[in-house]
C-alpha cells in the first residue's frame, strides 16, 4: 500500500492529498455493471429485493470511485453485475410471473436512490409513471401563451406516453387540447386543436401508429382552474391524454 501511495504522490495528477487510491478506476467493470443493472430493470418488480440490493451496491461502488478506493469499487461493480445478471435471467425465464407481480409489488417508497439515465427523469419505480403499468397515470403537457409548441420540460411526458403505447399496442388514446380563457372562443378552439395535433405528431415521430391517436379540442371551455391569473392560465393551456378504449 505504501509504495502505491508514494507513486500517487509524485504523479502529476491533480488528485493529491487525501487520496488513498489503488491503481486506476475500474472502467470496464463499471461499464459492465451499469449495463447489466440497466438490463435488470425489466425484472425489478419480479425480484425487488435483489434489484434494490444491486442498486445499493451500484451506489456504493460509485461512491468508492469518488473516494478513489478503486479496488473496493471494482469488487462492488462485479457484485452489481452478478446480481443484475441474475435478476435479468430470472425475468427471461419467468416473464409471466414477473408481469403479474408488476402491480402488487411496485411501490413508491424508494425515491431518491439512484437517478437512472432515462431522459424522462421520472422515478421508474413509481407505478403512476411506469410505462409498463397498464393503469399508469396519463400525462398533461403545457404550452406558452398563444403557442402550440410543447414546453421543453414536458417533452419527457410525451416520451413516457409513447413508451406506454408501445407496451400496450391495443390501446387507443385521445389527446384533448385546451386553451386559457384569453382570446376568442373560436380561435381558442383552433389553438386547442393545434396543441393536440402537435402532441399527436410527437407520438407518431416516436413510432406510434397515428390510427391509435384521436384528438379533440375543447378550446377554453374546460379549464382546470377557473381563476383569471397567470398561474391558472398556465395550468389551462394544456393537452391531456385520455383513454379511448
Amino acid at each position, binding site marked *: 500500500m505504501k509504495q502505491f501511495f508514494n507513486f500517487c504522490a509524485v504523479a502529476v495528477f491533480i488528485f493529491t492529498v487525501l487520496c488513498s487510491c489503488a491503481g486506476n478506476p475500474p472502467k470496464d467493470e463499471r461499464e459492465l455493471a451499469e449495463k447489466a443493472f440497466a438490463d435488470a430493470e425489466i425484472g425489478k418488480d419480479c425480484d425487488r429485493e435483489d434489484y434494490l440490493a444491486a442498486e445499493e451496491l451500484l451506489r456504493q461502488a460509485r461512491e468508492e470511485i469518488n473516494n478513489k478506493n478503486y479496488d473496493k469499487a471494482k469488487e462492488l461493480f462485479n457484485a452489481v453485475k452478478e446480481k443484475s445478471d441474475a435478476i435479468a435471467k430470472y425475468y427471461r425465464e419467468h416473464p409471466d410471473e414477473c408481469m403479474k407481480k408488476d402491480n402488487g409489488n411496485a411501490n413508491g417508497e424508494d425515491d431518491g436512490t439512484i437517478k437512472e439515465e432515462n431522459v424522462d427523469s421520472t422515478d421508474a419505480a413509481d407505478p403512476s409513471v411506469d410505462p409498463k403499468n397498464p393503469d399508469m397515470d396519463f400525462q398533461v403537457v403545457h404550452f406558452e401563451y398563444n403557442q402550440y409548441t410543447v414546453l421543453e420540460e414536458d417533452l419527457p411526458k410525451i416520451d413516457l406516453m409513447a413508451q406506454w403505447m408501445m407496451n400496450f399496442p391495443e390501446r387507443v388514446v385521445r389527446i384533448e387540447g385546451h386553451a386559457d380563457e384569453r382570446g376568442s372562443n*373560436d380561435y381558442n378552439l383552433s389553438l386547442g386543436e393545434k396543441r393536440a395535433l402537435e402532441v399527436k405528431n410527437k407520438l407518431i415521430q416516436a413510432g406510434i401508429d397515428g390510427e391509435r391517436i384521436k384528438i379533440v379540442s375543447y378550446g377554453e371551455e374546460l379549464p382546470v382552474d377557473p381563476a383569471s391569473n397567470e398561474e391558472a392560465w398556465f395550468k389551462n393551456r394544456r393537452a391531456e391524454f385520455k383513454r379511448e378504449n
Partner: protein
Amino acid sequence: MSVHFRLITLSAVIFTCFNLLAQLQVEVKDGAVAEYNMAVSPLAVLDGADAAKASEISSAVEKVLDITGYFKILDKKSFLEKPETAFKAVNFKAWLDVGANGLIKGTIKGKDEVELELAFFDVAKGKTLIQKKYSSKAALAKKSAYRFAAEVIKLLTGEEMNFMFSKIAFVEKTGEKYSLVVTNFDGSGRKELYSTSKTILLPEWSADGSKIFFTSHEKNNPNLYSYDMKSSQIKTVSAYEGLNVSASAYPDNKTIALCLSKDGNSEIYSLDTTTGELKRLTVNAEIDAAPSVSPNGKEIVFVSGRSGNPQIYKMSLEDLNKVERLTEQGNYNQDPEYSPDGTKVAFSGRDEKYQFDLFIIDLSSRQISRITQNQGKNESPTFSPDSKVIGFSSNRSGKSRLFLSNISGTRQIAVYSGQGEVLMPSWSPAETN
C-alpha cells in the same frame, strides 16, 4: 332651445337629418357631448288596461331610444305633469322646466285587445311631431311601441333602425350546463332552445333567421348542428373529424362558411348545406379561423395566425388569392364580424393593457375606432340587422353578461340578467318570429 347631438364625424346622413329636422335646429359640435333630453311620460291607463303592460311599454320605448346613444332619458320622478293630461292640454312650460327637449306621451286602453296611442312633441316649440294609434292583441303592443320609437329616431336622426324587432341567440353557461338561449334584443322573453352538459358553442343564425347553427361536443367531437326555429329539430350539419365550428351564413341561405381541421389544420371552407359540397378556401400552415361572410356573399373576413399572431384578414370569394390584412396594430386581433350593411367589421383585440376590447374597422377609410375600454373582457361582437347596435359579452361587472352598445361606444347597457354567464351572442336578421 337648440337640439344637440353628439356626432363623431360629419356624414351625409347628418346633412340629410338637417333637412328632415326643418323644425328642429341641430347644432353639431365636433366631439362635444350634448344629448337630446327625452321625457317619456308614463302612459295613461284607461278602460281596464293592464298597468304592468303600460309600464312595460314605456320602458320599452325608453330602452330603444337609450341604446342609440342619441338621447338622454329623463328621470320620471322629476316630471311635473300627470300622465292623464290630454295630448291637446300639454303644459310645455312644465316639460321645459324639467329640461326636456322632446316629450313622448301615450294612452293605453283595453286588456286583451289593446289600443295604444302615442305622441311625440317638440317641447320648445310646443308642437306635435308624430301622433299614432295602434290596435292589436296585448302581446303585440310592445312591438307597436317599437315602431313608434323607430319613427321618432328616424325623424330626429334620419337613421332607419330596426334592431328592436330582432332577437339575440347566445350561450348561457350555468355551472356545467350549457344552454342555447334566444331573447328579444333587450334580453326579455328568454327561450331555452337546447341544453346539455356537453358544450354549446358559437351560435350563428342562418341568413333567413329560420335556423341557428351551433357547435357541440355532444358526440365528443366538436360537430356543427342546426336548430330549426319552427320545428325545434336539431340536425347534424358537419361532423368531420376535428373542428366543425364558426358557421357564417351566405346570403343564398344554403351555403355557410365554416372552420374545419379535417385536413390537419384549422382552415376555412364553404359548405353547401343542401348538397354537402365542400370547398376549401384557405391554405396556410397556421391557424385560419372564425370566418364572417360579407352581406353580398363576395368576401369573408377571418382570423389568421399567418403573420405570427392572430390578425384580421379579408379575402375575396371570387378570387381566393386576393387576401388583405385589415389590422396592423396590436398582436391579438380576433373574432371579426361583418356588419350587415357591409361597411364595417367589428372585432375583439387585445390592447396595450392586455385587455380584450371591441373595435370597429370602417372598410372604406380603414379607420379603426374603439368601442370598449377599461371595462373587463369584451368579446364576440355581433351587429344588429340595421348595423346600428353591437351586442357582445362582457365580464366588466363580474360574470360575463350580454351588453349592447351603439356604434360609437358612447352608450353601453347590460340587457339580460339570467342566472348563468352569457357567452358568444349572435344577433338575428331582422324580423324573426
